[in-house]
């Protein structure tokens, strides 16, 4: 009997091993500077059994980071072109997403001033988190960093997403740097408008292109939030047993401080957030920001920004 139990546990370990490995790999890279809360995967006993799906009840804040990580960049020295602060309040079934302009001129946690998208390149996720915490006066519980290929693989691994593409993307000079040998090559892309199913490549084109957008980075932030919302909708159909395949697909393309068991806890939470009106989307358009800072960066009106942030990220 004991042998059967042990062998069954071994089967479970084998099944969840890819997910555990990914979590260990990615969380093992966490952070050089003061950190978010430690990963519960590293402290949890073993991934041998199916992850617990106890629902999350407390509010939490996650910093989502997205980077161009093609061969133009070396190692982890990448800019975070996408920075979105997400606050989830399970008890109220509310989600707030705040897009932080990548060109915002801020005091960096590693010292000095610069565009906020450079914080990660100077000190990894820890520096990015510390910079946002210090400038926006918020507490961040966790982070997720994803690269170009990671986003493509993630969306393909969940079978694509359904998006109402509000902004037709017509870009004659879209960077062709994900699968091309030349990281400076470019291509034409056309993502037509309207409700549609996007695979990873098309979703990436939709969130990354900014040439054809009158609002440039702000318009791109809106599209990024649309895709995030669609990923959340699709996550409702993902089961904990999908995690090994997902983690295998994402190996090396995603870094996070969130442990495997917490991911499993988040799945039912994603399923319960059903009301599209319960998702609040915030963008730091003028008058919250305006041009004129060094190097084409944006000046923040902290007097306006901080009350907004404190309202939704207490």
């Amino acid at each position, binding site marked *: 009997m004991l042998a059967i139990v042990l062998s069954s546990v071994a089967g479970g370990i084998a099944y969840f091993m890819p997910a555990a490995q990914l979590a260990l790999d990615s969380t093992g890279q966490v952070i050089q500077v003061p950190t978010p809360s430690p990963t519960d995967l590293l402290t949890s006993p073993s991934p041998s059994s199916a992850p617990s799906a106890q629902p999350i009840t407390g509010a939490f804040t996650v910093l989502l980071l997205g980077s161009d990580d093609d061969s133009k960049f070396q190692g982890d020295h990448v800019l975070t072109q996408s920075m979105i602060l997400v606050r989830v309040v399970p008890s109220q079934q509310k989600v707030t997403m705040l897009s932080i302009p990548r060109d915002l001129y801020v005091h960096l946690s590693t010292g000095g001033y610069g565009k906020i998208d450079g914080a990660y390149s100077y000190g990894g996720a820890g520096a990015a988190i510390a910079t946002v915490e210090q400038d926006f006066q918020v507490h961040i519980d966790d982070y997720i960093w994803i690269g170009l290929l990671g986003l493509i693989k993630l969306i393909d691994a969940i079978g694509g997403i359904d998006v*109402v593409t509000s902004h037709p993307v017509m870009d004659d000079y879209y960077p062709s740097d994900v699968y091309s040998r030349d990281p400076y090559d470019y291509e034409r892309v056309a993502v037509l*408008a309207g409700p549609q199913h996007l695979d990873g490549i098309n979703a990436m084109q939709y969130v990354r292109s900014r040439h054809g957008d009158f609002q440039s980075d702000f318009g791109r932030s809106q599209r990024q939030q649309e895709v995030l919302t669609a990923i959340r909708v699709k996550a409702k159909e993902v089961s904990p047993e999908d995690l090994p395949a997902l983690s295998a697909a994402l190996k090396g393309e995603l870094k996070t401080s969130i442990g495997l068991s917490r991911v499993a806890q988040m799945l039912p939470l994603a399923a319960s957030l059903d009301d599209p009106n319960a998702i609040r989307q915030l963008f730091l358009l003028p008058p919250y920001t305006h041009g004129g800072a060094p190097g084409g960066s944006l000046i923040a009106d902290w007097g306006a920004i901080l009350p907004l942030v404190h309202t939704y990220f207490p």
Partner: protein
Amino acid sequence: MVFSGTLTYIALGSRTSKVALPPAKPTEASPRAQAPSLPGTLYLSQEGAIYSLSAGRFHQLTSESGWTQPSISPNGDIVAVKRSAYYSDLYVLNPFGTVKRRITNNSQPRNSDTGLYHWVFYPRVSADGRTIWLAYDKPKFAYDVVLSIWSMPYSGSLSQGRLWGNAADYTGGDVQPVPVRGGVLYTKYDYASRYSANLESRLVGMLFITNGSSPGRQLTNPAEDCRDPAISPDGTKVAMICTYMKQISYLTIASWNGSKLGVRQTILSNQIVAQPTWAPDGSGIAYLAPGAGQSGPFQLWWLPSAAYAPPPAPVPTPTPGGPYNGTLPSPSPPPVVVIKPIQVTTNNGFDATSPLAWGS
């Protein structure tokens, strides 16, 4: 031990969701047994191939090589887009999918300047078969690539084409032309705040109409955020998809007098819906949407006309026993019959940016 360990592994694997299963080819999976046989022949696109659906069976008309957005010409030919990596062109196919001729030629020798290429989308042939309408990315300027509405002789070339309207810069432009008497109905993308100071500066779709002699006239409110117009066979209604600047869509029908839209009727709400298309005999509307209770690749759905047509006026029941001059009892309203849409396919993945074409 080996057996129980393997069994555990397999059991866990069998509990995975089916989210990442690729869609089946329409010809491999027939419509659901209980699905109605739709009238005429419906043309759809999936994975770069055009399929027809007639008498309950799908037929693959083209190879999977970039074919999309089929449209029917008055003589029964199919006009479709063939999309390549950097450009697209229009072709005329016979009803069995054989290429008869190429209408546009946007191909170029391989050029390092990708800005020299052109897209053409959304072909639509006029009722008299003499004119073809399309969305073409000319004029364009560097990063400002927008589609504009063009018309050209059906048997001519784009050099004989005429530009209709003025697409707004950096918006994606004007798309989805539908020829109407004396002009064209189309979808314009523009920033809502340019039309209403109370609205956010977000890009929205609006139905417009133009007769070519004046700037397009707005038919829908920017806050409605509408697209995908389709005129009913009797010419009295327009079906469209409105999203109200959210990540959901509403199938909406509006009355239509040839120049203005009237009262809106929401037929489907709070889901993702695309490409409503009227049956030529007026028996209903086909559209694309994810399968019931799922997100995921788009399936073919059918909405019988009873779901949106007004019910017939109730006729008072004659009082037994002969003429009666008093007040007749108020007829009780007929029971409300809720007609639900019918999901025709279950595991396909139709291109939701490709309008459906429906031949009688």
